[in-house]
């Protein structure tokens, strides 16, 4: 039982089998999320619709209304879960998440600027995507500024970067508040979408763009796992194991910025997934990043999809902001975990 308290599933299930089981679980939850809504569609009917064997009404609801939202939830949740796991590994801190570096707040601020000041400066074709593009650009800008601030003589000081992130967070938050103060009612509703998050805008073309933007994050993760494992020992130890530390730091920060920027651009800021998913994954299967990274991506999506199903059904026909749901469910759950682990360690 000593090994269980370290959160080691390895003796029970090989990594591939554990990941496959988790993926299966996420698939089940996704079907449930598609089935859930103002019109309830039985899960078997959902499966038939997905494979084109259901009647036209069910197929229409599943393919054009529900599936895009669930797929978007899986992608955004997956990106946030994975980004959280990468940040925690890089900062050697289980409390790090994409919100901590000011990436999410910066992205929301970027969107808010465009919403309030308007898109007049953009080419006509890009105007509907103005806030999304601004969110993406701002996420990258925040990351690069933090990275530059924390880099001295070619070495990035991780603790300084964390502090720079805290400052960027405060700055972006203050900026957003200032623009909210100056906005009109219509703009305010738009702003709420960005600061509290929503998957209501999901469409297949958006999902296509999102998927492409998330590729660097998803493709880079397997290459970063080994370096992050070495980093569990400490920076010096990782260096003496031959890990190119500065490259690892830069690559991690850049793919996280790209991934979180793209996520915020389509769905606004959604908290807690990036913090909670890697935690649960480590508790269930240990801290080896070859497990933590893919499992956090799966679980992040597997948490966000049902959270979104709740967001759109609890007050139907009105929708709760998804960020509200993840915080309302995530925070007490997280506190319960803390209390339990406190009791376990005495």
């Amino acid at each position, binding site marked *: 039982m000593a*090994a269980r308290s370290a959160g080691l599933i390895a003796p029970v299930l090989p990594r591939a089998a554990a990941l496959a089981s988790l993926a299966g679980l996420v698939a089940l939850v996704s079907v449930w999320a598609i089935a859930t809504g103002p019109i309830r569609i039985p899960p078997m009917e959902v499966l038939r619709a997905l494979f084109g064997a259901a009647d036209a009404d069910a197929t229409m609801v599943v393919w054009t209304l529900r599936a895009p939202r669930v797929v978007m939830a899986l992608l955004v949740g997956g990106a946030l879960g994975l980004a959280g796991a990468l940040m925690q590994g890089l900062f050697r801190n289980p409390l790090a998440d994409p919100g901590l570096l000011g990436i999410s707040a910066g992205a929301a601020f970027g969107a808010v600027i465009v919403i309030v000041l308007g898109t007049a400066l953009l080419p006509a074709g890009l105007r509907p995507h103005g806030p999304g593009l601004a969110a993406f650009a701002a996420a990258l800008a925040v990351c690069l500024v933090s990275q530059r601030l924390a880099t001295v003589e070619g070495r990035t000081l991780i603790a300084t970067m964390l502090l720079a992130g805290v400052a960027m967070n405060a700055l972006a938050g203050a900026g957003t508040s200032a623009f909210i103060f100056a906005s009109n009612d219509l703009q305010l509703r738009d702003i709420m979408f960005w600061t509290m998050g929503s998957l209501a805008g999901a469409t297949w073309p958006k999902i296509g763009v999102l998927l492409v933007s998330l590729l660097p994050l998803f493709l880079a993760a397997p290459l970063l796992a080994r370096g992050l*494992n070495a*980093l*569990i020992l400490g920076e010096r130890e990782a260096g003496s194991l*031959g890990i190119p530390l500065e490259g690892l730091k830069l690559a991690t920060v850049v793919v996280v910025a790209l991934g979180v920027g793209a996520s915020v651009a389509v769905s606004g800021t959604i908290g807690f997934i990036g913090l909670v998913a890697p935690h649960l994954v480590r508790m269930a299967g*240990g*801290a080896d990043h070859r497990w933590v990274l893919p499992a956090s991506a799966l679980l992040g999506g597997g948490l966000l999809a049902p959270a979104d199903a709740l967001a759109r059904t609890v007050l139907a026909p009105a929708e709760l902001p998804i960020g509200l749901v993840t915080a309302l469910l995530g925070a007490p759950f997280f506190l319960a975990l803390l209390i339990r682990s406190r009791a376990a360690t005495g």
Partner: protein
Amino acid sequence: MIVADGIGVLRGGRAILDGVSLRAEAGRVLAVLGPNGAGKSTLLRVLAGEMAPEAGRVVLAGVAAGSWRGVALARMRAVLPQAASLAFPLAAAEVAALGRIPHAGTAEMRRDGEAVADALSRAGVSHLARRNYATLSGGEQARVQLARVLAQADGPEARALFLDEPTASLDLPHQHAVLAEARTQAARGLAVIAVLHDINLAFRYADDALLLAGGRTVACGRVEEVLTEAALARAYGMLVRVTENPARPGERIALAA
């Protein structure tokens, strides 16, 4: 073989190391001794190629320290730093397995499982393999870290082993077990460099010694020539008696006078 020539390191305008030279030969154990703050750990980092000195040069296995590529360097030498804590909970066996990272993608990778099991057994921690590292005692953690370093050094490219106070926080039998293992690694053909505080462990297990004080060499050479009463008095500012070990004829022993 490791050759260092005229090593100088400055930190905040102060010389941490000044003109230190040494040769560490394959198959021999070199002990680095000296009072706290003498620059022993800094020297170890410079010798291991982890840190570039302001002055002097280091040649590792025939190649200048600065010219080694990270992974090749990690396969050529392993470094045991002073105790550190982990960022996330890992099992002891997982910690030891991290030592195999430099071998990923080489033919050696097939031997990962075998190398980790062997390293755990050499460090005497096989029975702790499944335990959470964070719940182990300081001495047990130190031996798990040693296992990681032995797993790293288990490959055809290994030439050197650097141990920074490998006996700190260990009980008496384990101090001897760890240094006996250092001798075994030297017998395998590695150059072993260990920072030690215990003069008597140096007499027992080291072939050569470097005595440092204030960043400068007090004496360097064969252990019995270096660790003399006069040199120890100069390095530590304390009278030390060196005599024959009554328990082991022919071996020396140092006693605080």
